[in-house]
């Protein structure tokens, strides 16, 4: 960032780089990092599903229980819901103009995402650890 004589911001404000919303580029950057992870995890997930097309219960369970599959499935579920929350947040902020509805929706998607991500993780762990 160049020093600009016309920049009216305090140098400290500029150095912190947090902007008026106080979160800087955090949201933007996390969205990109989870996106990059999901490119790989998503392709792997499609391959896993295709390999289990007509699998019966025992085969599917055994596949999920394999250490690498279990690990990558947990990563996929957590990253997918994280990325989903970041994306839905922007959509809600753009289109919901009543403040209380906007906040309610923003909180609701976070609750739902954590619930679903934990449900997915718990299921994989239960299968992988053989409960």
């Amino acid at each position, binding site marked *: 960032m160049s020093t600009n004589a016309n920049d009216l911001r305090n140098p400290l404000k500029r150095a912190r780089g947090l902007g008026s919303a106080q979160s800087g580029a955090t949201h933007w950057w996390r969205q*990109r990092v989870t*996106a*990059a992870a*999901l*490119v790989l995890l*998503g*392709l792997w*997930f*499609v391959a896993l599903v*295709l390999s289990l*097309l*007509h699998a019966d*219960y025992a085969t*599917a*369970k055994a596949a*999920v229980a394999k250490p690498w599959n279990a690990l990558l*499935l947990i990563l*996929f*579920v957590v990253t*997918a*819901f994280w990325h*989903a929350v970041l*994306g*839905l947040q922007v*959509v809600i902020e753009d289109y919901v103009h009543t403040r209380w509805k906007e906040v309610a929706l923003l909180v609701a998607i976070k609750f739902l995402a954590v619930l*679903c*991500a934990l*449900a*997915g993780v*718990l*299921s*994989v762990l*239960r*299968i992988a650890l053989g409960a």
Partner: protein
Amino acid sequence: MADTRRPLSPHIQIYKWQVQMVTSILHRATGVALAVGTLLVVWGLLSLATGEAAFNQYKTCVGSPPGMVLLVGWSWALFYHLCNGIRHLIQDAGAGYAIPQFVRSSWLSVIGSVVLVVLVWACVLTCGGAA
């Protein structure tokens, strides 16, 4: 309410449809659809952790005609969001902003997603019909 005599920004019905606009709108729409579709993944994992009866019920629901229609839709949404997401990541790196490149990469995401979804479903069908 706000003073409605202010000039309003033109909405989508004013613009001539262009592919860059379609890819942008579709990216959001498929993103929201995929957020919902991820619930199907969690449902599958939960059913697998619950037991054979629950898993067979899941397979029946997903393999039913409405289930298959949703699966085709979601698989296309996944591949579209994947292709266009990669396009956005490349643009975030600062590349491909000239108008002809922008239009070409838009078409590439749309056509690429259709090719990928056809390939995957061809793979599904050659493996012996519906799940």
